[in-house]
């Protein structure tokens, strides 16, 4: 590369080095672009196909035309049907379960995250090990006793049976992410605000909260996504009671009447389950990536 800045009105001094050959630069670029295009195709093609089928008449399920043909909205009627035990009901269930789980896990997790990040206390290592251990935990290991316990309490197929275990299971994620966010926060600003005469309440409200809000929000999104994704515990603990099943379980059991392979209806249901998440993820991608890579990986 020449050392002459672009657009500089310097006198034309003959440069020492010949300019770098343009061809190599381009070839590298085209190679990169090709791989990038391939990556984008690989990631998006299945998702695109789901969209195409969701809008296609069921009779044309196996037509391979790769764009929208035989377009119909019929499939979405199934997906949004909120009458008793239909798929739409499960969407509402997912929303309810996800919201409650997220709220509870955040309330409990914020305290623990703050303590882990800022306080030194005896047994901190043990608490951290317990939290990490719980996050690596195979869900099946507690499924049997939980199933029995909830059966004894008459809880199988109730909302609380789906919500309570999920709160515990999302706590490691919440605490871990919040701990990592909180340890990177400039807490000395709080001190500075106090020195400047702010009350503890003001220091928190005006200084700390605005700084912490994005971290809380990001963590909440991650917890909600995890809850929306959950399948194993929900499928067993809902115990076949369709009125409390979340959408993942309902989707796995999706039927659309006899003698129909309900592929297009299933894809419509899949689109309905997925699109809100995709929108959230795309809107907040920067935050989500920072949340995902928080802790462990100090970028």
């Amino acid at each position, binding site marked *: 590369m020449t050392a002459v800045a672009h657009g500089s009105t310097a006198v034309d001094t003959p440069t020492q080095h010949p300019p770098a050959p343009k061809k190599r630069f381009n070839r590298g670029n085209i190679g990169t672009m090709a791989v990038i295009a391939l990556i984008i195709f690989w990631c998006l093609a299945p998702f695109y*196909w789901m969209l195409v089928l969701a809008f296609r008449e069921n009779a044309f399920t196996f037509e391979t035309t790769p764009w929208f043909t035989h377009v119909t909205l019929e499939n979405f009627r199934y997906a949004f049907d909120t009458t008793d035990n239909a798929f739409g009901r499960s969407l509402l269930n997912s929303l309810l379960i996800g919201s409650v789980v997220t709220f509870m896990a955040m309330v409990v997790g914020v305290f623990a995250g703050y303590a882990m990040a800022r306080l030194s206390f005896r047994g901190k290592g043990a608490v951290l090990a317990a939290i990490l251990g719980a996050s690596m935990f195979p869900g099946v290991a507690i499924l049997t006793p939980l199933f029995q316990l909830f059966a004894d309490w008459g809880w199988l197929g109730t909302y609380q049976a789906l919500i309570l275990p999920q709160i515990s299971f999302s706590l490691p994620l919440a605490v871990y992410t919040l701990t990592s966010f909180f340890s990177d926060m400039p807490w000395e600003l709080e001190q500075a605000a106090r020195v400047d005469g702010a009350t503890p309440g003001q220091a928190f409200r005006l200084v700390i909260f605005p700084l912490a809000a994005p971290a809380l929000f990001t963590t909440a999104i991650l917890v909600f996504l995890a809850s929306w994704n959950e399948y194993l515990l929900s499928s*067993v603990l809902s115990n076949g009671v369709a009125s409390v099943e979340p*959408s993942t379980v309902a989707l796995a059991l999706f039927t659309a009447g006899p003698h129909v392979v309900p592929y297009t209806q299933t894809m419509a249901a899949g689109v309905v389950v997925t699109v809100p998440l995709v929108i959230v993820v795309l809107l907040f991608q920067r935050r989500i990536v920072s949340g995902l890579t928080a802790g*462990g990986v100090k970028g």
Partner: protein
Amino acid sequence: MTLAKPAAGQSGTAPLPSAPGPKRNKIKTGEGRLAFMLVAPTVALLGLIVGYPIIKAVYQSFLSDTRTIDPETGQFGEAGAWAGLTNYKQWLLQQCPTPTGRTVRCPTGTLGSQFWDSVTVTVGFTVVTVLLETVIGMIFALMMNRAFRGRALVRAAILIPWAIPTAVTAKLWQVVFDPQGILNKMLGTNFAWTSEVWPARTAIVIADVWKTTPFIALLILAGLQGISADIYESAKVDGANAWQRFVKITLPLVKPALAVAVIFRTLDVLRMYDLPQILTGGANGTTTMSILVVDQLNSGLNSASALSTITFLFIFAIALGMVRLFNANIVGTPGKGGK
């Protein structure tokens, strides 16, 4: 005595009294009690929903599911009587109990006869998917790390598979893998993807790699972005070629991030349940250990407890081994001196 000039870059403002270090900003009064109050709810919830069930499961795994005849008295015992290691024998040695209190080799088709197969399948899935995801994820990350226009677009694109719930992923690939589906039409093949052993396994690996490679890629990318460009520049000057730069600079420096990603993913695949359960129903050699536990739930909770305990110990042992192997600092908490 010479007065040292303030180092360049130091701000001109006087430091706050007892300026805390940037990473070790501690409160000093009543710390222990405050911390206890803050952490207690989390510990209580984990204890109630994770700790207590685990202990209960371990205890139950030594109890009998069936009523057995006591060989001494000829009386039927109670279901739930102490059974020692019977349940563990059923799984580890594939010896099923008979009503007369003896054990026989588990007949083919019973869940007991599938244990070692499920271990093999689970480990196989883990090795193959984690390997593929790491390699592909590395390629993704290296591509995204090059400065080019549209990086945001790629990041958005690779986040989409990650955002799709696993249940949807399974259904989506089920449609793609249908014998009459788009994949066979594109390849011109006629595979019965989900009803033959190896195609079914391949289908699960492909679906899992599609969904979770982005996660690994993002973790690796975070590691890559922490490497300064100067190192590469000086390596170039010293005449290192691209491969040498990758092996000697990139890999060692990205290793911590890579280790975390690989360990998390390994533990995830070891407990894999929903993808094979929905995509193939666990049929045709795709029954993972988790699927076997859930299948066993309906035919005896105590031996299901034994199986889930085995699964848990198995995963725990592998986790421990990997952490040792990578010497990974999974716990990136500040104030612990770990780096």
